[in-house]
């Protein structure tokens, strides 16, 4: 996936593959109606890995705190949804004991406003935080971001306005039975597909080469005059944007949110993001997708058959992945089957550009 040989336009075969996956996604909740929420969570997992890879894979900045934006989006959306009809402090203080009836109109207006804010507020946080954290490199950056995510969880946990550790019971979806699941399934899938399309577009621009240069040798990139902090800020803001929306949808889908396990779960979702990307192969567009699919399947299997040992099993998987299989599935395929990835490698650069633009 590069600025030179890939473009937003697709070949016919690639288009067919994309449409087949899209059709499978649309059909899934009808084929497995009992598992709609589970499959929606799968889409969120794909989004997790895609957004983590922007920085971790393409730019070489391993953030352990991206879950911050997920939780932030979740809470921002919840507060906006409640605030549109009710006093937030009273609502959270009552702990779900007050029965607030949201009319369908109020509900969807609140949700729409909430989703917009849940995208924008995390972007704002990413911009401000990038001033502070991007002075750090390597492991220091990883620990710094982890610290921010843990701090966010603790602060939310003790902030009574948003319910503190008791959490918030989300407004009830107005539709009939089964509608809530399908609605949020569609929303999660849409968010992930839009995220994928946006990244596919973004990685065909100069952005891609610049963040790869930062990954390979940041000092050299600086010596060439590249606006490194600009690129780093944009990369993180893009992650924050989509993660915030995912948080908003996830919170509403779950129906109840609290800081430690749902909004800022650094040790589960926060680590899953990294593990999924590494499994699939970081620094590629499809690696995170393949990785999250496999990871999700393994997670379901271990939760079903190894209950009690599921985290041990995932831990073993991560260790094997990191020690013996660092390049991930897509990286391995690239080594074994280079011809699948070699696009127009024989043409001169100027020709590659022309065909790349038209193909």
């Amino acid at each position, binding site marked *: 996936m*590069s*600025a*030179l040989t890939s473009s937003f336009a697709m070949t016919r075969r690639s288009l067919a593959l994309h449409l087949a996956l899209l059709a499978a996604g649309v059909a899934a909740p009808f084929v497995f109606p009992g598992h709609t929420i589970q499959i929606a969570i799968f889409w969120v997992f794909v989004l997790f890995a895609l957004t983590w890879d922007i920085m971790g894979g393409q730019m070489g900045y391993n953030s352990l705190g991206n879950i911050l934006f997920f939780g932030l989006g979740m809470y921002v959306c919840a507060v906006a949804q409640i605030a549109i009809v009710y006093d937030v402090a009273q609502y959270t203080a009552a702990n779900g004991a007050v029965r607030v009836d949201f009319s369908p109109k109020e509900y969807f207006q609140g949700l729409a406003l909430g989703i917009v804010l849940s995208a924008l507020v995390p972007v704002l946080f990413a911009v401000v935080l990038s001033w502070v954290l991007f002075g750090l490199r390597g492991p220091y950056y990883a620990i710094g971001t982890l610290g921010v995510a843990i701090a966010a969880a603790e602060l939310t946990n003790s902030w009574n306005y948003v319910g503190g550790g008791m959490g918030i019971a989300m407004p009830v979806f107005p539709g009939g039975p089964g509608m809530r699941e399908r609605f949020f399934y569609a929303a999660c899938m849409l968010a992930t597909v839009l995220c994928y399309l946006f990244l596919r577009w*973004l990685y*065909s*621009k*100069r*952005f891609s*080469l*610049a963040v*790869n*240069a930062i990954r*390979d*040798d940041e*000092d*050299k*990139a*600086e*010596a*060439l*005059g*590249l*606006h*490194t902090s*600009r*690129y780093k800020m*944009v990369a993180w803001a893009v992650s924050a944007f989509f993660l915030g929306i995912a948080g908003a949808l996830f919170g509403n889908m779950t129906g109840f949110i609290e800081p430690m396990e749902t909004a800022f779960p650094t040790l589960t979702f926060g680590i899953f993001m990294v593990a999924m990307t590494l499994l699939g192969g970081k620094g590629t567009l499809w690696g995170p997708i393949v990785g999250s699919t496999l990871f999700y399947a393994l997670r379901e299997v271990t939760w079903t058959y190894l209950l009690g040992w599921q985290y041990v099993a995932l831990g073993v998987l991560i260790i094997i992945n990191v020690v013996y299989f660092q390049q991930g599935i897509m990286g391995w395929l690239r080594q074994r089957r280079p011809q699948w990835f070699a696009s127009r*490698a024989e043409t*001169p*650069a*100027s020709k*590659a*550009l*022309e065909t790349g*633009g038209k193909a």
Partner: protein
Amino acid sequence: MSAPVVEVQGVTKAFGGVVANRNVSLKVAEGSITGLIGPNGSGKTTLFNSIVGQHPVDAGSIRFSGEEISRLSVQQIARLGMLRTFQQTRIFSKMDCVRNLLISLSHRGSEWGDMFRRYDAQDMERADRLLEFVGLYSKRLQIAGSLSFGQQKLLEFAMALMNEPRVLLLDEPTAGINPTLINGLIDRLKRANAEFGITLFVIEHNMRVIMNLASHIYCMSRGELLAEGPPARIQDDQRVIDAYLGAH
């Protein structure tokens, strides 16, 4: 001597108790090839680092075409048009040669929106032309890390040219290169100077190379400027000879 494009005035730089540069003053004339020689540890690379903004200086001033730059960052100075290559060659080893050149396009006046643009055909052609200039055209789609050390040096040089600098600081461009390749490199350095009008400021240990290349040479020893002048005079300067042979 025409107007100086780089003007270093009384620069001092110490690392803890070690004074790497003491009260160094020199000028690099616009359009010239200027040399900087001196024994190992005499402070040449430190001076380069100070000039390109790698670290702040303790005292003194550095001007680039009249503008004070000693407080600017590496990126800002690079965008003004002063670039350096590294003693330990630094390229983007996981990218192919063409991509190495494309990312080296000048970022002078680049705007936020530029990151969402593609490279255009003109950029591609320039990349191909410069790869041809340094003799790497046939390897343009090879991963840069797979090139030999000498070829990587040539690639780094092409990357610098892609950036269209006014001044290029070269830190030991011929170190570790075989003699045949050295002659080609000298030739290309001279052509870059003559055809593209790039002022070169070169650190070099190979006396044959620097005497052949530079029109004006500064010699440093123990952090201080020892001598300056045209190659012929430097060659015969007893202080320079003593410094290299360790008489100090």
